[in-house]
């Protein structure tokens, strides 16, 4: 129903035939509740630009929790005006009201003049002249109240509560209390708000590097104080700089273990601040923490003990290195069950729990690398071709040339045949026979090398030799 129809005296809930009789040229469309709900949801997401906490109030309402954000628009009235203006520009007629609670705001938005602002505490006086329908009542309850001649909220409010409950049911009292701000009401927000979020807004946009560093320290200290008071620690901190021109730049740091030490976190942010381009200035900084989990308070140790807890020493180091060099650049090697040398090592985050950690007893069989199979200290990422001289095709080479230097083999050990892991290939490509014969050889100077001959011996084709690693 649009404004023109309302002006003709039509109302929601009227039968289509009655309306047609009143206004013969009426254009009637079928109601589409599902499409309406989807449109309302889309509108709620759009409203996130005003506040992150938007709750749906089907069929036609939205609640925005604007605590702490209204000043960005220069006050609640200006914010409501901006919201209505933007909606109107998009062809959506809307009414807005600002109040201390959802109930009062609902009533004002629908039954008071547009753009009503109500400070907390003034609900009773302001809502008294409004009709009882402003209480978000079920149609039956509203009809019953109207039948008894209680035309306004004020008239209903003076009645004793137990009488209201007896006559109209408990729902009316609850709605009345919610409207008057005497009962709290929980809204289900569209996007679950992250409680670990804080923001700093500046009267004057900042752009100097030292200001940005100070702001980073301030906002981190604020959130860390909250984390500490609630016994929590976070794993991921995202610092967002909102520029005047609407561009948002974010810096993310991660911690190996949950933490809340302001100094440590600020130090991790510090080297990244250079990458933030302040443009014409930064007006708002926000900090959000993810991966929040309980973190007990720690007693500072009095003794300089040898075995420090990992969270005191290694974890901050890992954090610093990871944030400076990248997540992939800091790792701990762990055995991977594969005989392919390239795949036998898995990179794990340095402080991830170990499978065969000494605390859990000796490693179980099958974990760790086989000590019976010698492996080089340096494994070349790509095996390098060598010119090898072997007396017999199945023997280790008698000498080989690698990187321009001739090595005479003095001792050799092997072969250790490692076959390709055929099961990792697509079925149609699977074929037997790809194998490498590895030899451990020592040259006359004592250098120890890991060589392999590619493939099985085939008459005619000379064997290909490669150097894959150095034992040192």
């Amino acid at each position, binding site marked *: 129903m649009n404004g023109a129809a309302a002006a003709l005296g039509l109302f929601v809930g009227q039968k289509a035939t009655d309306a047609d009789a009143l206004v013969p040229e009426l254009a009637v469309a079928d109601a589409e509740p599902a499409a309406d709900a989807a449109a309302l949801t889309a509108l709620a997401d759009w409203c996130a630009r005003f506040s992150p906490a938007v709750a749906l109030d089907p069929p036609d309402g939205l609640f925005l929790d604007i605590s702490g954000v209204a000043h960005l628009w220069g006050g609640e009235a200006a914010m409501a005006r901006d919201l209505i203006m933007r909606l109107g520009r998009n062809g959506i007629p809307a009414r807005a009201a600002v109040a201390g609670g959802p109930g009062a705001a609902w009533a004002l938005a629908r039954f008071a003049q547009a753009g009503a602002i109500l400070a907390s505490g003034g609900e009773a006086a302001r809502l008294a002249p409004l009709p009882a329908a402003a209480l978000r009542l079920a149609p039956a309850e509203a009809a019953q109240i109207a039948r008894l001649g209680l035309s306004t909220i004020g008239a209903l409010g003076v009645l004793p509560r137990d009488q209201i409950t007896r006559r109209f049911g408990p729902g009316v009292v609850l709605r009345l209390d919610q409207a008057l701000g005497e009962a709290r009401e929980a809204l289900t927000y569209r996007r679950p708000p992250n409680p670990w979020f804080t923001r700093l807004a500046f009267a004057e946009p900042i752009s100097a590097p030292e200001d940005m560093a100070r702001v980073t320290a301030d906002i981190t200290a604020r959130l860390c104080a909250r984390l500490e008071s609630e016994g929590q620690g976070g794993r991921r901190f995202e610092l967002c700089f909102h520029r005047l021109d609407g561009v948002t730049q974010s810096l993310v740091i991660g911690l190996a273990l949950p933490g809340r030490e302001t100094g440590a976190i600020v130090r991790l942010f510090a080297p990244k601040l250079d990458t933030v381009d302040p443009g014409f200035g930064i007006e708002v900084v926000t900090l959000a923490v993810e991966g929040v989990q309980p973190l007990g308070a720690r007693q500072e140790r009095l003794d300089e003990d*040898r*075995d*420090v*807890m*990992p969270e*005191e*020493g*290694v974890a*901050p*180091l*890992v954090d*610093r*290195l990871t944030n*400076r*060099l990248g997540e*992939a*650049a*800091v*790792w*701990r*090697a*762990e*055995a991977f069950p594969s005989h392919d*040398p390239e795949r*036998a*090592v898995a990179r794990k985050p*340095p402080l991830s729990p*170990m499978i*065969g*950690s000494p605390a859990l007893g000796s490693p179980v069989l099958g974990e*760790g*690398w086989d*000590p019976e199979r*010698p*492996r*080089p*200290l*340096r*494994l*070349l*990422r790509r095996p390098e071709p060598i010119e090898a001289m072997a007396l017999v095709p199945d023997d280790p080479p008698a000498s080989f040339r690698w*990187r321009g*230097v001739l090595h005479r083999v*003095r*001792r*050799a*050990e092997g072969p250790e045949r490692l076959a390709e892991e055929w099961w990792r290939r697509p079925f149609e490509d699977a074929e037997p026979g790809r194998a490498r014969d590895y030899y*451990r050889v*020592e040259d*006359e*100077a*004592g*250098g*120890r090398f890991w060589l392999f001959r590619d493939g099985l011996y085939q008459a005619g084709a000379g064997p290909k030799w490669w150097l894959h*690693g*150095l*034992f*040192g």
Partner: protein
Amino acid sequence: MSRVASFDAVRAKVAAMSACRGGAGKAALSFGDHRLDQVFPAGGLPLGCWHELGGEGLEIETAAAAGAFAAVLAKPLASRGAVVWVSRRDDLYAPGLAGLGFPAERLIQVQARDEAQVLAALEDALGSAGVAAAIGEAEAVDLTAGRRLQLACERRGATGLLIRRRMFGAPARKTAPGVLLGAATGSAAATRWTVASAPSEPAPGMPGLGASRWRVDLKRCRGGRPGSWILEMNIGDMNDGAYPLRVVTQLGDRQLEAAQSRNLADGDAPPRRRAG
């Protein structure tokens, strides 16, 4: 009079300062062999300072022998805390470390993008609590960087091992061929070693290769004497508290000769040569 007193005070201060860097009374890691321990003023590899390991020839680029020797040196330290290995290359192979008896699960590997990052990460690691040793691979350490490493070591008593390694194909840095990489530059390292692989000797009648051996030259040692040895990895008991290295041969050294003849007079000198 007062001038003499103040001079004495300065001298005492200098002595105290030098004592706190690799001097006597400092923690040391014994090699378990008198022939090796006696060259160090502290009776073993001094801890809480950093050491420089280098190689020659192809080793400048591969650093395999020096890397293996560093892993063996750091092995006893791994039980005291984490070990960090910083490199520009990612060719360090954990199964190989495990084969040397080094507990790979105590190792944090770090890959840096350039030389400065290697040194910065190494310094950071050395100064962190819970890190017993840090191993870095860098081409050159100038005096300032060396002092910074030393200060980081002194903060928590961590031990640094710096492997001199040039990226493959990188031009050499102002060093004449044949000269140890940067050997002529001053350095803040407590000791400087040259490590090369040495031919192994399997037990008689055994095929294949014997235990890894290295020819190790201690080129410089603050407060101690240089020396040369052939060392073999102790593979008999890899995981108990045994010393990781065994002296196979002591190579000739004139200063040592004199010291040993004195020890002989005392009657506590070990046999100088074993079958090798």
